[in-house]
Each structure stands twice: as C-alpha cells, then as structure tokens.
C-alpha cells in the first residue's frame, strides 16, 4: 500500500497533480476571495469541458503516432451543419426537444464523416497525418465558410441552450458530460483490447502489424472516435455560445496538443494516460482563469503558460532518464 502511494506520487500523473494543486493554491492566494468563490469555480466548470474533450480527442490520435490538425474545424463544421437543421426545425415551429435531438445526431454524423475522411486518407492511403489533417482543416473550414458565408448560425431552440448552461444537482451539465467522457475514453484506451492495440501501433506499427494487429483498421477507427468526441465538444460550444461559426475554438487546436503533451503523452505516439491529459487540462484552465482574474497582462499569460509547459516537459524528461 505504502509503496503504491509512493509510486503514484512520483509517477508523471502524480507530479502533475502536485503541480495542479500548487497552481490552484497559488491562484487562490493571488486573488483572495475571488478565485475560490463559488461563482468562479462554477464558471470554470462550464469552461473546462469543451476544451477538455477536444484535448482527449487530440490525445488518442497522438497515441497512435498521428495528430489531428482538423480537430477544431471538425467540431465547428459539424455544429454548423447540425445547427442549421436544428434552427430550421425550430423556426418551422417543430418540437424543441425533437429539434435538439435531430441537431445532435446530425452533428455527430457530420463529424463521423469528417473522421471517416481523415481516417481513410491517413490509414488506407497512407498520407502523413500532419499533412492529411492540415489539408482536411482547410477543407472543413472552406465548407463551413461556404455554408455560413462568414456569418454565424443562430436561432437554436431554448432546450439546446440548457445543455451548455444547465445543472443537475448543482453540477453543470457540461461537467457531467466531461466526466462521462473521461470514464469512457479511459475504459476504451486503457482497459480495452483496442486501446492496447493503439498503444502498440504508436510504439511501432510494424511490430504491431506482425503481432496480428489490424493496424489500418485501428487507426481508421481511432480517427473516427476522435471526431465523434470533437462533435461532442462542438455541441457544448454551440450551446454555450448560442450559435455556430467556423472560427469558434480555433485557439483550442494547439492548446489541445499542448495539453496532451503536458499530460505526459509522447508526441511520437505509444505513450500517454487519460488522467495525465485531464490534469493537464485542469492546470491550463486554472492558470488561464486565475491570471485573468488576477489581471495579469495577456502577453505574460502566454509566457507563463509556455514556461510551465517547458518546465514540466523537462521534469518528465529528467525523471524518465533517471529511471532508465
């Protein structure tokens, strides 16, 4: 038991969690009475999930040794298409709940199409993930802009807004969704056969292939699942912003990569834990909100974020080296 605790604390995730606690208390000290207020904690609980889900989506792709640069545009394209249907049903006087259900189904369907596209190009055609998804990013952005003509899709039924702003037993609905997704992706990645195959592919696709893993199929499915996660983040964003537009969340793209790597995911694949990514997302959220409330210059906020990323990566690198 004792050695188990010790192992937990000196593991990557343990160190990260200590860092999280540290920044949390630091921020509480910097803005006494404001950061630790109920209002702010709740506001952070609304902000965290959309980014957290995107980071998890990015992470599972990175574990295969890939990357998904079209992540945020997958989310926005699907929310635009689904949002249009939803707004139209609602405008035609249709049932609100039915419109929401139809909208969400279409959002997830649209994202699946994006995922199939990415997965096909990467897994079966064999284009380097970075190039394939870079192209897909521009493609999805272009399609979105063609639909919206640069405007935003709005006029969603009232029921839809509840997803992003409602609470169940005092817990924000986005947070509940996020927790469900954390558990789901954990079971999928760290407790299932397919998850194991993903790690193997990320370590060495050739060895995985010769060990009887259907490499292409698994990679294809991973992109598909990642896109569905992106669609869920899209649902949250569309609901929270009461509209859908191609540029929403564009700043999340690189942050999602940063959160994965900060959480201990190896950028070249084969390594990474859901818990690490989640804690990393929490760290980034606390720093961003905390410094905002404290009133630090926005440029310095970026400097602090970058600094923390580099420090943590260095610590990870050094502890890994020592353990070898």
């Amino acid at each position, binding site marked *: 038991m004792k050695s188990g605790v010790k192992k937990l604390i*000196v593991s990557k995730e343990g160190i990260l969690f200590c860092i999280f606690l540290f920044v949390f208390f630091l921020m509480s*000290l910097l803005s006494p009475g404001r950061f630790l207020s109920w209002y702010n904690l709740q506001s952070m609980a609304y902000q965290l999930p959309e980014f957290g889900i995107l980071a998890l989506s990015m992470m599972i792709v990175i574990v295969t040794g890939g990357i998904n640069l079209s992540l945020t545009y997958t989310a926005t394209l699907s929310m635009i298409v689904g949002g249009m249907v939803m707004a139209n049903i609602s405008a035609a006087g249709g049932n609100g709940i039915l419109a929401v259900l139809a909208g969400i189904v279409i959002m997830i369907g649209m994202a699946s199409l994006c995922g199939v596209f990415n997965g096909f190009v990467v897994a079966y055609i064999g284009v380097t993930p970075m190039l394939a998804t870079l192209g897909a990013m521009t493609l999805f952005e272009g399609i979105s802009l063609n639909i919206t003509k640069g405007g935003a899709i709005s006029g969603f039924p009232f029921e839809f807004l509840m997803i992003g702003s409602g609470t169940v037993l005092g817990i924000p609905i986005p947070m509940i969704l996020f927790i469900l997704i954390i558990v789901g992706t954990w079971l999928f990645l760290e407790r299932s056969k397919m998850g194991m195959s993903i790690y193997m592919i990320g370590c060495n696709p050739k060895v995985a292939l010769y060990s009887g893993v259907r490499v292409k199929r698994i990679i294809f499915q991973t992109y598909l699942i990642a896109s569905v996660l992106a669609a869920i983040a899209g649902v949250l964003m569309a609901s929270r*912003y009461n509209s859908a537009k191609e*540029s*929403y969340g564009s700043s999340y793209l690189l942050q999602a990569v940063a959160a994965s790597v900060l959480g201990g995911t190896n950028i070249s694949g084969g390594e990474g834990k859901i818990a690490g990514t989640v804690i990393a997302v929490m760290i980034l959220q606390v720093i961003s909100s905390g410094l905002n*409330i404290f009133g630090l210059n926005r*440029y310095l906020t970026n400097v602090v974020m970058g600094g923390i990323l580099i420090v943590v990566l260095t610590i990870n690198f050094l502890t890994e080296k020592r353990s070898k």
Partner: protein
Amino acid sequence: MKRVLTVLLLMMFCLSFVVANGSQEVAVSDEITIVVMPKLVGIPYFNASETGAIQAGKDLGINVIYTGPTTPDAAEQVRMLEDLISKGVDAICVAPNDAAAMTPVLMKAKKAGIAVLDWDTPADASVVDLSIHQIDDREYGEHIWDLLVQEMGDTGDYAIVTGGLSAANLNTWIDAGLAYAKKQYPGLNLVTGKVPTDEKQQVAYQKTLDLIKAYPNLKGVVGVSTPAPLGAAQAVQEKGMKDSIAVVGTSLPTDSGPYLADESLRVGTLWDPAKLGYLTVVMAYNFLNGEKPQDGQEIANVGKISVWADGRTVIMGPPADFTKENYASFSF
C-alpha cells in the same frame, strides 16, 4: 524525493485552509472598475485604442482594465469575460469577434449587475446598455468606394482584401460599399470575392501578389481592416506597380506612412482609435453615474458625438482621410 513531495503536499493543505478562511471576506473596493476588451491585443489599431482607454481612466480617476485574447477567437473572448465577471467589475465594454457568441455571457454579466457596452463592433443589441460606434457604417462603406473611384477612375477591375470573412463590421462596410458601387459606379468590376487575410499584413501581402498575377488588368485594391491595405500596398510597392494599381483602404496613418509616402497606398481612411477607446470609457463611466448620452453632446478630448433615436447608439464622428500630404500630422 518522497519526503520533499510529502512536505510540499502538507504545505499546500495548510495553505488551502488559510486561503479558504481568507476567502470568507470578499474584497469589496469602492473604486469603479471598467473593462475594455478588444477583439484581440497586440495589433496597432487596438494598441492605439488602449492608450485612449487608459488615458480616460486616468482623467476620470477610475480603474480601467484593457485586456483581450491574443487571437481573434470568440471562444477565448467568452472565457475571458466569464473570468472577469468572477473577478467582479462594474462595466464591461466589448468589441465582439462574433456578436452571437457573446450574447449568453453578456446576459450573465447583466445578471451579475454589470453594465454592458459594446464598442468598435456591435454586439447583440438586446443585451447592451450602450453601443459605441466609431462611425456610421453605411456612410463609411460608401466613402471607401468614393476614394477608390477617385484614385482608379470609375471603370476597371478591382479586388477587395479583407481582414476576415466573418468580421461583422468589415462585412457591413464592404456590403454597403458594394451596394453603393452597383448603383453609383456600374463600370467597376470586382474580379473575385473578398479575399480574407487573417488580420495579418503578411497574408495580405501574399494574397495581393497572387491577385496581381491572376488578374493582369487589376486597377484597384480595397483593403478593409487595418493590416490589409498595408499588405496590399507592400505588394504593389515591391512589384513597382503603384502607378497602374491604386490601393486604398482603412489603415492607421503612422503605420501606413512608408506606403503613403511613395503613393503605393494612395489614401487611408480611419477614425482615431485612441479617441474611440477614450470615448468608450467616458460613456461607460457616465452610464454608471446614471447619465445618458445626448445628441450633439461635447465630450472632452473627443469632440461632438451624435446619438441615434434609440438613445443608446453613440456615433463618434466622420472619418479622417490620410494621404501623402497630411499623414505626418496624425499621431495614431
């Protein structure tokens, strides 16, 4: 290693109690705090409005926070606004990257008893207490096209380089200008749809080079958004085509100096963003004091403002044109 970590953890626990106790008493200061949030920080236009907003804070003896995202992303802006509501401020003045996306968070702010204003770009009219406009959008759009015709003549090919396809104010000017051109200058031929440039001079430069190559008969370029005309002028300057291609657009006089000087940028037209920042803070302050803006009211350091019939849309005034002759006399 383990001992150090244990000590660290214990310290944090102790700290948490101190903080939790400290947080019981919510700090209340009686100083007025006004937040002015641009679409993004770190571009010349919004840097200029920052100096105005901060100056107004000094003149009025109030606390002005000027902060915004580093990329023009609506999601980032919403997050920052939510944090600022947590912080507890008296007024929020926002230049939305996307009007629709701001509505829920601005309603949250109102619920928390915060005065909500928009500036530079309008937000959802139903949630703002006051709306500060630099200019009458339709008149401004028409003015830009008048300048274009004055420089390139009323026939020929031209193109539009814009900051972003989804920026509401830029689109409003372009739409106003295009509608006006259709009626007033039927000889003008827009060669292609408006070209987006991500609010970056470098991108505008690249895209203009492409335009010059693709449309050899190009006679004019309209740059909308402050970096766009600079990029377009840079391309024209480099190609040595300043006599055959007229670039006009919405740019700051100091930035565009090098291009205005050799006429690769023929005319820039804009308002003073510092004044806009100043006016925004003054209007927010007056509103918090229960004072409504009046049509024709004289604002110190800004000038006469006009107010629409709805009583909450404030217009700063007509734009200033910058040319080779006069650009040096402006300070922004």
